[in-house]
């Protein structure tokens, strides 16, 4: 299929939807590494033009990976509500962008078209949007989710407390939990990445965090981010988990690299609904990140932004409580520096919310990227303004287990103050009872982990 822009000019011809999508992307090293990026800005803009004039129907009918080859495509296609799709299928991608940014468009108007969108349409419109477009439209969307606490309600900003330890030492994990709670972080989840992916370690971490949550009556949920099958085994043996976690990819091959498929995820979701100790109804937690498919050699020639959108299309099937992109974890060969990370962070949260999933972000970077703490603080400010549901926080921004940097526990209160936001209601009340929170600010007592001993 030859695709032409609405204003044809020399070199403005593209061979496929996949090519247009890839070349219309903002600069990402990952697309260059895959050899699918635009050669120059002129070609990039030409692709954006081609995309702007493309009808949503064209995107629906040309999924980036054929449905008969890829179950992620099937999940996305089968979820489309046809009458709504029929109403918007003649829109161009430019029409969609202008609908989203128009005065008067809010969560209700977006919710009205949401069931008619596919991940490819959402990826396409993202490529036409500037950073401020993305922040503005994200701020109009409200996608709350409920487990033990509710995250994502207007006026709230939540935080995952990530108390990882390089030796999976449970007492250290609890120490870091104490510190994080004393800064008011932790209403989204107390979520631990274990080093050792074993049932034993997973169980130990789930028990310790659960016990701590019970002892101090913290309105939150725990999660141990081992492989989903490890968590399922632990839960079947009685380990107390509030949420079930898995990393997702945007292609069947990518998920195969992660050791999961739709059947397994269905089974995990079913088990989580029956056996998690939380009240729900949202009991799944997913992480994603641009470039994951390419790093597993499972990108199928598709650009990393479009694949990221497809992760959200898959996540949506499971009514998750939390979904976040781990935006700067993967390395400079996918997102080179602070500029690319910030762009990707804005894109991912926007795309997630437009899919209707409760989206947060791990605003992070590794030491071999051209980024530093200022870059992710910038990103945090942008996304707090845009209304992301939650951020990841680690002690003083330094995760010594995963060997990367993210937001600090400290950033929670700074962002609340900056944007006049608050933690999730039940958690806020608990903070007040613990005398850690008064009149929208941390109290004297805050920041001291020993209050929980």
């Amino acid at each position: 299929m030859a695709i032409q822009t609405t204003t044809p000019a020399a070199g403005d011809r593209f061979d496929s939807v996949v090519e247009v999508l890839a070349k219309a992307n903002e600069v990402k090293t990952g697309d260059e590494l895959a050899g699918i990026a635009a050669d120059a800005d002129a070609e990039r803009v030409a692709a954006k033009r081609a995309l702007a004039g493309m009808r949503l129907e064209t995107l629906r009918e040309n999924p980036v990976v054929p449905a008969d080859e890829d179950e992620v495509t099937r999940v996305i296609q089968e979820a489309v509500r046809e009458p709504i799709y029929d109403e918007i299928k003649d829109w161009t991608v430019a029409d969609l962008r202008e609908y989203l940014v128009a005065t008067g468009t809010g969560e209700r108007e977006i919710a009205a078209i949401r069931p008619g969108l596919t991940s490819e349409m959402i990826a396409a419109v993202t490529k036409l949007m500037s950073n401020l477009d993305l922040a503005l439209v994200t701020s109009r969307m409200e996608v709350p989710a409920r487990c033990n606490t509710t995250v994502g309600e207007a006026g709230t900003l939540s935080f995952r407390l990530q108390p990882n330890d390089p030796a999976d030492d449970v007492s250290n994990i609890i120490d870091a939990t104490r510190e994080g709670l004393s800064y008011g972080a932790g209403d989204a989840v107390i979520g631990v990445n274990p080093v050792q992916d074993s049932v034993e370690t997973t169980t130990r971490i789930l028990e310790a965090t659960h016990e701590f949550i019970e002892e101090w009556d913290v309105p939150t949920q725990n999660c141990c981010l081992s492989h989903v099958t490890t968590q399922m085994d632990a839960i079947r043996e009685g380990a107390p988990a509030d949420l079930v976690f898995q990393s997702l990819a945007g292609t069947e091959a990518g998920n195969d690299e992660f050791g999961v498929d739709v059947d397994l995820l269905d089974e995990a979701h079913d088990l989580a609904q029956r056996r998690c100790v939380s009240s729900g109804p949202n009991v799944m937690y997913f992480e994603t990140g641009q470039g994951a498919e390419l790093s597993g050699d499972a990108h199928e020639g598709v650009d990393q932004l479009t694949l990221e959108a497809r992760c959200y299309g898959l996540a949506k099937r499971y009514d998750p409580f939390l979904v976040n992109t781990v935006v700067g974890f993967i390395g400079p060969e996918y997102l080179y520096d602070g500029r690319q990370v910030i762009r990707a962070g804005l894109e991912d949260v926007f795309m997630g919310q437009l899919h209707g999933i409760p989206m947060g972000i791990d605003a992070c970077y590794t030491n071999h990227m051209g980024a530093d703490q200022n870059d992710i603080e910038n990103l945090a400010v942008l996304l707090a303004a845009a209304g992301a549901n939650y951020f990841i926080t680690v002690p003083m921004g330094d995760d010594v287990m995963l060997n990367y940097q993210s937001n600090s526990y400290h950033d929670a209160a700074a962002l609340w103050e900056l944007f006049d936001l608050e933690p999730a209601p039940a958690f806020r009340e608990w903070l007040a009872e613990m005398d850690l929170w008064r009149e929208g600010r941390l109290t004297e007592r805050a920041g001291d982990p020993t209050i929980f001993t």
Partner: protein
Amino acid sequence: MASDSNPDADAEPPEPTTSDDADRGDEDALRRIADRNPTRLGVGRSGPRPTTEALLEFRADHGVARDAVHSRVSDDLLKEFGLVRLRTRVADTDQYLARPDLGRELDADSLERLERDCEPAPEVQLVVSDGLSSSAVEANVPQLLPALLDGLEARGISVGTPVFVESGRVDVMDAVGEELEADCCVNLIGERPGLRTAESLSAYLVYGPERGSATAKKSVVSNIHDGGLPPVEAGAELVDLIAEMLDAEASGVDLREDDREFRTE
């Protein structure tokens, strides 16, 4: 520890306190938590922001890590151990970071030099690469290499001409080993620096090096630095591991079922 110097909260002149002594009783407990944890706990705050000292410490550690990525391994080190200097197809550090594929293959000059200057078909071919931390190479190789070379010699295992590959990825060992037809190839490569240490080195080992072979075919000894596995002890461990590999004619999962832990480079 906690303090809040919020000047709006009271009419008193604000005091620039960064630590509080109201709760003296917990100071000991706090120190214990801070001491026993490898994470940055008990760092304190002023209002919602970290103390200046905590902030500067963090930036200092990040600076060390960045420098480890962007500096070069000195010629002195290469001379001291007679390492032949080779390059991959990477043009500069920026490209190295963005194009891992180019860091797995030697440039034309290096291929030539390999043929000209290096002994063919050794039992063991040693490769040293800067990888993501030249500091790791500088810090560990001087203690590791003699323990490894003497140990192999004592066991009568022949070692080829050791090489240094600038801007190398782990898999560059496959190219070097395949070109030289070595039985076994070892790559001592700088790990991605963390804020705790920028000097951690990994040793990857493969029996029957071959371009494009699966990662699982490689064995790895990681976390080599003064605070982890001391480099001299790592050298001794590699002697045993290489002997085992040559004996079994295998490496990685083929050698040990449980050898599945690989770090991101």
